């Protein structure tokens, strides 16, 4: 696997890989999100307790699930970068961070919008809400640490250390706030043996999680390409690429 992975430490290879993967992720992701959202919002049955209002679940849950996975992905990228000194890994980390922060923010906002009709309040100091808020702060901390450095090589390492400190802390934060206060409903998807959700509601939800994951992947690929181009601005292959696209736009 190492042999297969190693060439991607070179930025040019990674750039072209991103280029190749991008249409798959973006088109497929958009299609899946479209299907899942229409299915979830229009065709899934109504909840007997929460009536129509529960439908925000098709935005809220995917964003909440992704926020944690994106943080893990970012920390894994940081770990790979720190251990094997892979430069592209830090670029991946910084391409992931803002996507993760945005998704976390979306899950907080939709959570507030859902909380108002259901619990009668926009915000409650509940365990999951709090840990989500802290997750947002961890993302922002990593991003601002990275931005604070002039030297991006150094910035990547520093932000990477912070991301790993955060990922060690994340479960502790999660359990500590859970112990501290809980109002949020328990997990209802992760019990695969007997989900507490009927399949007509569950399928669009799973689909929309997949769609969100694909679209986040697409945004990540775009940001990754952008990051590579910015960092490698003076490399011959980037210059050649820029010349080529300039020539083709002139030709039109």
């Amino acid at each position, binding site marked *: 696997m190492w042999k297969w992975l190693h060439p991607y430490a070179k930025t040019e290879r990674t750039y072209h890989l991103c280029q190749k993967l991008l249409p798959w992720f973006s088109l497929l992701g958009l299609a899946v999100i479209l299907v899942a959202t229409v299915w979830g919002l229009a065709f899934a049955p109504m909840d007997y307790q929460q009536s129509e209002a529960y439908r925000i679940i098709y935005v809220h849950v995917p964003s909440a699930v992704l926020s944690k996975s994106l943080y893990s992905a970012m920390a894994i990228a940081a770990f790979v970068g*720190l251990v094997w000194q892979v430069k592209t890994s830090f670029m991946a980390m910084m391409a992931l961070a803002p996507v993760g922060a945005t998704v976390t923010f979306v899950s907080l906002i939709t959570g507030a919008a859902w909380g108002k009709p259901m619990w009668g309040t926009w915000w409650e100091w509940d365990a999951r809400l709090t840990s989500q808020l*802290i997750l947002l*702060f*961890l993302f*922002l*901390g990593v991003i*601002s*640490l990275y931005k*604070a*450095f002039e030297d991006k090589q*150094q910035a990547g*390492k*520093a932000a990477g*250390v*912070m991301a790993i*400190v*955060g990922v060690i*802390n994340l479960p*502790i*934060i999660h359990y*500590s*706030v859970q*112990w*501290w206060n809980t109002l949020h409903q328990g997990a209802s998807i992760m019990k695969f043996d007997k989900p507490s959700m009927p399949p007509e509601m569950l399928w669009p939800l799973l689909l929309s999680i997949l769609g969100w994951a694909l679209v986040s992947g697409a945004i990540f690929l775009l940001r990754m390409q952008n990051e590579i181009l910015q960092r490698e601005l003076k490399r011959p292959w980037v210059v050649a690429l820029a010349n080529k696209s300039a020539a083709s736009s002139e030709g039109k």
Partner: protein
Amino acid sequence: MAILKRDLALAYRQRAELMQPMLFFILVISLFPLAVGPEPKTLQLIGPGVIWVAAILSSLLGLERLFRDDFQDGSLEQLMLSSTSLPAAALVKVLVHWLTSILPLIILSPLLALFLHLSEPMYWALLKTLLLGTPLLSLIGAIAVGLTVGLNRGGVLLALLLLPVFIPLLIFATSAVESASMQLQYTAQLAIIGAMFLFSLALAPFAIAYALRVSQT
């Protein structure tokens, strides 16, 4: 050992700077009775939390100077080049920070417990959580300080990085004091804080050393 002696002597010669976090600690705590009213009941309720939050904030103030002077005059670079192991040296520096800028806060805490009308069992619980929990502040704080030491204005960034990480400690510590106020057992909370402390004691020195190397390049 030599580092310990040197750093303690240096700290002693900069007494005025060391006083600042202590004064800050007392001032922040005396703001609360003024802000929420002098009712003993209310103060007792918020007291442990206030003392812990103030301790975290003032430890942040002291943390900033942990590696700053050594970084600026180049003795940190010397330390890295010398044969002493950097993690051990970092651990000594953390110890000095704890002794010089956090231990005074703990010594002051009986006075502040009086200010906030904490009962006696509450105070003992508070003292135990402070003794066990504040080294954690220094250890984890030092990682972030190591990362930001090369930056010109690291102060606010330091708070942004560290405060979320300190939240579990805050929760367990205040819940221990709360249990004590209701005459309940709080060994579980103390055990968790102790576990976090030992875990970070084992790993943090290496992270600090790595952070310092990143900053030095």
